[in-house]
């Protein structure tokens, strides 16, 4: 218990501190790097609760892919820091309001399970013994066996969103050179090379 508590407080403290740094860092690239640190510590917290699959997926998806693109975009932007910081007071009330709403929701959820501990037994999907079935396999059961249609529908919605994004940004440019590998490979000496006998001093 002692060691687990120690690591919990370590991860939690670093996560909260770097979350604070995300909004207070002067340089937006530093903000994104701190955001990555928050994700990393969140993955550590997942590991502590035994949700190893979620921890790894958080690493692969959020840090390995989403945050890379995020960092990519932020690095490319030419940002005027002074202008960026000028609106802080203007947006602060909205941010505080959202924070309060999220905090209230968290208190309701956690408070609910503290006030009525038996609420946990009412869930429709019982949690299997982790010693018998690993939580990767359990998640697979839920997603691909019990709720496969919902999962497929969610996938289709994402596909539609992806196609929409591609269609919105697709732009056919004329008159640029493109490599067509199949055409290149299909060329034969007869179509590609012309042998010409040139008389000296005349040219073609």
């Amino acid at each position: 218990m002692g060691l687990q508590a120690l690591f919990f407080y370590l991860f939690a403290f670093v996560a909260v501190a770097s979350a604070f740094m995300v909004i207070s860092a002067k340089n937006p690239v530093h903000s994104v790097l701190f955001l990555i640190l928050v994700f990393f510590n969140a993955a550590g917290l997942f590991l502590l609760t035994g949700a190893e699959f979620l921890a790894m997926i958080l690493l692969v998806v959020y840090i390995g892919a989403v945050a890379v693109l995020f960092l990519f975009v932020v690095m490319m932007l030419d940002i005027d820091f002074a202008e960026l910081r000028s609106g802080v007071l203007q947006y602060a009330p909205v941010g505080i309001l959202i924070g309060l709403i999220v905090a209230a929701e968290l208190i309701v959820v956690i408070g609910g399970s503290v006030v009525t501990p038996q609420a946990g037994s009412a869930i429709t999907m019982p949690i299997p013994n982790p010693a018998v079935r690993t939580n990767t396999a359990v998640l697979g059961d839920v997603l691909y066996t019990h709720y496969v249609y919902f999962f497929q529908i969610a996938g289709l919605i994402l596909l539609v969103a992806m196609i929409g994004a591609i269609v919105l940004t697709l732009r056919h440019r004329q008159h640029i050179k493109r490599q067509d590998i199949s055409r290149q490979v299909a060329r034969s000496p007869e179509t590609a090379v012309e042998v010409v006998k040139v008389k000296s001093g005349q040219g073609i």
Partner: protein
Amino acid sequence: MDDTFFSTYAWPALVMIGQSLLVLVCLLVFIAYILYADRKVWAAVQLRRGPNVVGPFGLFQSFADLLKFVFKEPIIPSGANKGVFLLAPLVAVTLALATWAVIPFGENWVIANINVGILYVFAISSLEVYGIIMAGWASNSKYPFLGALRSAAQMVSYEVSIGFVIVTVLLCVGSLNLSDMVFAQKDGLGTMMGLPNSFLDWHWLPLFPMFIIFFISGLAETNRPPFDLPEAESELVAGYMVEYSSAPYMMLMLGEYAAILLICSLTTILFLGGWLPPFDIWILNWVPGIVWFILKVLLIFFGYSMVKAFVPRYRYDQLMRLGWKVFLPISLAMVIITAFVLKLMGWA
């Protein structure tokens, strides 16, 4: 009280630290000789001698390089973002070495035998791009930045096909544990045809196209030639490493080679049967598993350095085409085909 503290926390922690240090030291020495081997192979293909001055046959060249790197002055460009500039090589080398915690070198020869081993390797190696992006951005200069952008796009693209290749192997194994993946290759296609246990049982044969895709994607993922666009010396001088010198540069190089070795050993575990001997004969079984493991890793690495020696560099659009239009459809199709075959034949 003191006694239980010692037996539950202190002793396991000491054992773990000892194991990690052992693996780390062996790995670093191995990397030194892998670097030497890489240069020798490259030289041999080009009919040169390669490093041959320091020590017999130049065997101590890497250590001489190490000393030189350490004793040179690290130069930090005045326009650089100092913190991130120094953090980048640390990130690169730490992540590249952290992955080795779950690699099984032999039966039970693994520091952390975790359930989601392959996901851990995949996750950490997908983070390795940060070392490069941070280095390129913090240098505050054109070539490093271009190199960093290229590598970000390149590594993210090839991770997709690597992910699908790993999924096909997972389908065949039914576990995310790296040791289980090796055990699953004890029996396979060879024993199904009535042959004794041999190298024909390993995954490279039934999943042959994936083996090739994994090999090539591994080249791209670790920025090896012919996909070394982030550091293409003909266009970007040295890409994201332009502004680095002495020890930070050495750490970037170290991270790169540790990542290459990792991809080699991952190929060994996924497709070449890990520590299993090529034939089930007593004299080969008597050889310790780690020897087979290292031999297989060296075989794959030899392939990597030969590719470096004689394949010309891809153009950037060709690289992207290969990743997205060739490897992604093939690997996606193979995931579906493998799943169907396993289900229809009742092997899953």
